[in-house]
């Protein structure tokens, strides 16, 4: 079959065949890198494409307004407003489901008057009945996963009214618009309008969703939302919340994109590592072919021809690796994308394995081995034929490490030999260790971050550690507000705050918008994380204009510094403040409003009078979730009964656990990635060890001749592998610290939490050495066994 090939290409093929284990090792090394890199690219593409597809195919709304029940006629009016392409309405009710086992589960109940005429945020039936009939309910498919209900099961639902109703589960559906699954702790239920009235709830809708005309800018969207809400308020409707999808993308797009970008970067690192593994293998190959290269030169092979022989060999390895890597990277990419899809809740309809990625994989698989082998091949060719064929190898100066090792005379002989040979080829040692070091540092860093996370989230909420935060629809007197809170059972302590939005006023136009907050001087709910400067001083004539800004505002207002005066405009009126401090920036780069804190007396006066309150912060007597839930409902009732609408109610525990659970998904992915790198590292170590065995064939023969037994040889090589592994762990320890910082920054930006504070975690520092030991021993087993089978005869025949 190869009859037509010229002898030098035959040599390439025969060389590949004659040392199968080396060929397989090289192919595996290249393949792992291409699989990791290509796989992550495929995962990224798959997620981005399908997430967008799922979002677009639901005919998404981009403005969501929650408010008091409104009439059908309002929807008609909204649809006629300029900038509105389409609008729809539904009801959203919160309740508690009693699971068959008696435990409680928070639920959000969605109701549509006509499921067949939904035009925005479309739902897709998955299983069973659709739409839900009267008395029945459907579950979002992700909720069903945790609910584990069978069709026909009955579930009791308790509403704020404290009445309990029994509903039957009849089907599941898919809702793109609302977060569900691991990152949402609530079940999403869907019922018919008639069922809603059976639950004694006003059947009029409470949520208005709007699709803006394509091409509106973010500012125009905000203006439209303001226009709508102003009109609603004029009609006496109380607005609870307004949500604007600024970029018109799925709610998980930014977070998923950030996380996957990190994965792609790690994939690129794995590729680089696999390049280094190739350098190792190629160096071993060239060493064993020293004389062969000399012969080729002597019989007329010029440098380009011999170089060609080895580069073509690398190309062949690349082609073989590609054959494995193409399907495997698709598998890895689909698995990772599938995992992410499962967490975020979307379907994978189209593969992200595009021709472009395929081409990229081909290019990378062929180029990486050639590029990384180029320099070693060149330097091997620089050895003259005369040097290569004379058996007299130039004596090398004993290296520093060797001389140091020579002093450790008291170590057991086998350990000594292992140590010495480990340092024999220092370049190779470094390359091998590099991969293990990267794997180890990523692993430890990720675990550090896992521990740092709750603290960071606490920091994030450091400006508000209240259990419950109520935002009122309008300012009311502080004493009245405090009394209402104090009358609510379970409330241990309450504070009245004011919050209002304002803009940094420049000479020509308004700049960044800030959320201006103020509360009691010695608030129990504030632990200001200062970046620089100080917190506010007690109120006095001199300090009344003090302000503390989030450092984030510096991004758009870089000229601000401590001591500067800053003019804020609120409702057309300008106020001048003096900057005394900057808070550590919390929130990712896309936060458009930054918090600022001023004196209570000043801000209260700004919004209309003395001792006003728009926000009530409450501490509960216990941290029991159920109690806090009951308290939330009771608090809301207390204010609404008095005719004060509650615009927003925040439960800190839910906030924290949601943030943590989505973070855990990321951590899991990162650990998987560090495991992948550890596999690359193990492969590298296996390669190094088998090279080490090969180079020392003669030495092994001599050791055998002087009585070394097979177990001695096994011990020697396994020790060598283990030493390399443990040494790499030491370096990982050191590197993990800065890496925690770097990954923390990147992750913080991805999940929009700002930077994550580094914290050491004992677990990573104990677990990694154990893991790396297992990997090293596993990687050394085969080479050690090979060493044990080398006979004296074979050793002496080795050229």
């Amino acid at each position, binding site marked *: 079959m190869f009859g*037509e090939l*010229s*002898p*030098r290409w*035959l*040599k390439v093929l*025969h*060389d590949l*065949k*004659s040392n199968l284990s080396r060929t397989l090792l090289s192919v595996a090394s290249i393949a792992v890198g291409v699989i990791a890199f290509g796989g992550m690219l495929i995962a990224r593409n798959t997620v981005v494409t399908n997430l967008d597809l799922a979002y677009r195919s639901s005919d998404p709304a981009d403005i969501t307004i929650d408010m008091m029940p409104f009439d059908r006629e309002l929807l008609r009016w909204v649809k006629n407003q300029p900038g509105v392409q389409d609008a729809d309405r539904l009801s959203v009710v919160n309740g508690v489901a009693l699971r068959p086992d008696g435990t409680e589960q928070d639920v959000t109940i969605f109701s549509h008057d006509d499921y067949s005429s939904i035009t925005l945020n479309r739902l897709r039936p998955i299983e069973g009945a659709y739409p839900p009939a009267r008395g029945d309910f459907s579950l979002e498919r992700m909720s069903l996963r945790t609910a584990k209900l069978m069709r026909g099961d009955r579930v009791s639902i308790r509403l704020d009214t404290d009445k309990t109703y029994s509903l039957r589960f009849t089907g599941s559906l898919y809702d793109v618009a609302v977060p569900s699954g691991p990152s949402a702790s609530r079940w999403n239920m869907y019922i018919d309008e008639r069922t809603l009235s059976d639950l004694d709830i006003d059947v009029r809708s409470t949520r208005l969703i709007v699709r803006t005309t394509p091409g509106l800018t973010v500012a125009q969207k905000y203006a439209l939302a303001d226009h709508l809400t102003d009109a609603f308020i004029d009609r006496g409707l109380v607005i609870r919340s307004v949500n604007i999808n600024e970029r018109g993308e799925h709610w998980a797009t930014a977070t998923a994109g950030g996380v996957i970008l990190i994965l792609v970067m790690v994939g690129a690192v794995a590729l680089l590592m696999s390049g280094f593994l190739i350098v190792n293998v190629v160096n071993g190959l060239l060493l064993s072919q020293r*004389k*062969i290269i*000399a*012969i*080729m*030169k*002597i*019989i*007329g*092979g*010029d*440098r380009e*021809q011999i170089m060609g022989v080895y580069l073509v060999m690398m190309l062949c390895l690349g082609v073989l690796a590609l054959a494995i890597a193409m399907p495997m990277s698709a598998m890895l990419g689909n698995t990772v994308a599938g995992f992410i899809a499962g967490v975020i809740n979307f379907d994978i309809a189209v593969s992200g394995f595009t021709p472009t990625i395929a081409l990229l994989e081909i290019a990378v698989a062929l180029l990486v081995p050639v590029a990384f082998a180029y320099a070693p091949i060149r330097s091997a060719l620089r050895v*003259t*034929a*005369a040097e290569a*064929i004379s058996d*007299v190898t130039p*004596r090398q100066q004993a290296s520093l490490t060797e001389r140091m090792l020579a002093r450790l005379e008291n170590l057991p002989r086998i350990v000594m030999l292992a140590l010495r040979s480990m340092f024999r080829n220092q370049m190779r040692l470094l390359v091998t260790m590099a991969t293990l070091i990267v794997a180890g540092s990523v692993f430890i860093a990720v675990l550090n971050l896992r521990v740092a996370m709750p603290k960071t989230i606490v920091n994030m909420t450091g400006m508000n550690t209240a259990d419950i935060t109520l935002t009122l629809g309008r300012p009311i007197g502080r004493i009245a507000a405090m009394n209402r809170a104090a009358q609510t059972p379970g409330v241990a302590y309450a504070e009245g705050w004011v919050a209002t939005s304002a803009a940094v006023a420049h000479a020509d136009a308004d700049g960044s918008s800030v959320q201006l907050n103020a509360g009691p001087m010695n608030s129990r709910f504030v632990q200001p994380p200062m970046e620089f400067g100080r917190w506010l001083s007690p109120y006095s004539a001199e300090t009344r204009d003090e302000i503390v800004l989030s450092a984030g505002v510096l991004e758009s207002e870089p000229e601000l510094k401590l001591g500067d005066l800053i003019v804020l405009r609120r409702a057309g009126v300008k106020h001048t403040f003096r900057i005394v401090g900057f808070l550590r920036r919390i929130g990712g780069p896309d936060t458009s409003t930054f918090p600022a804190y001023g004196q209570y007396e000043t801000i209260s006066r700004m919004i209309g009078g003395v001792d006003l309150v728009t926000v009530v912060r409450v501490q509960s007597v216990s941290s029991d979730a159920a109690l806090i839930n009951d308290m939330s409902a009771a608090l809301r009732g207390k204010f609404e009964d008095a005719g004060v609408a509650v615009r927003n109610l925040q439960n800190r525990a839910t906030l924290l656990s949601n943030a943590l659970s989505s973070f855990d998904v990321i951590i899991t992915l990162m650990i998987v990635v560090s495991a992948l790198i550890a596999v690359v590292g193990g492969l590298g170590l296996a390669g190094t060890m088998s090279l080490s065995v090969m180079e020392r064939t003669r030495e092994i023969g001599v050791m055998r001749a002087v009585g070394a037994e097979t177990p001695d040889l096994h011990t020697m090589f396994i020790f060598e592998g283990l030493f390399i592994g443990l040494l790499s762990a030491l370096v990982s320890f050191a590197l993990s610290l800065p890496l925690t910082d770097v990954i923390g920054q990147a992750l913080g930006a991805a999940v929009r939490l700002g930077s994550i504070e580094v914290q050491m975690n004992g677990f990573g520092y104990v677990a990694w050495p154990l893991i790396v030991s297992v990997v090293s021993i596993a990687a050394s087993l085969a080479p050690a066994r090979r060493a044990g089978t080398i006979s004296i005869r074979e050793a002496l025949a080795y050229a």
Partner: protein
Amino acid sequence: MFTRNQSAVQMAAVRKPDCLMALVDVKKAYKTDVGDFYALKGINIEINAGEFVGVVGKSGSGKSTLINMITGIDRPTSGEIWVNGQPIHGLDENRMARWRGRSMGVVFQFFQLLPTLTVVENVMLPMDFCRMYTPKERRARAMDLLARVEMVEQASKLPSQISGGQAQRVAIARSLATDPPIVMADEPTGNLDSRTADAVFQLFEDLVSQGKTFLMVTHDNELANRLHRVITIADGILVSDSRR
């Protein structure tokens, strides 16, 4: 490197020898722990086309070193080497390789066949490197050369499957692959029984009678007696140069 080449060319204009090969005061020092060791201490030889020259001397006298100088495998520490009007000492290794492939066949003392190529492929390799003959002709020619050294039966074996003497014969066949006008052989018959050695020697004599120039190192006095010219080396010095 460049200036060295240039000076060599200038010298060529001044005193280019008119014989096929010329060594002018060639010295070779090897670096050792105890300082430089001179394996060749100033050798002057001229060899004409069509000569069949033997080099003899005790083990360690510098015979292989001398061959390495003429084949350009190694460089002299000082002195000049001219082959076919080319200043060999001035060529870089790459040009040297290209030139050598076509004009000089080499048989090493510790010959080396490429272990993963079959016997016949080993013989074809120089033709491949030198881009001589068509692929089909290469195989036919290689088989023809193997026939001359009685190795046809072993043509498709790997070097590890043949004996030392057989491998030596393959190396001889390979040295003739590109039909070079000059053949340098370092003990080509060292591993052969007297009958086979005789056959190989016969082959050499045939080639010499066809106009090729041969230089071979040998320990075999009987064979040495059949040579046109015998150069004796001792401790890196040429001690005798006898023609018949």
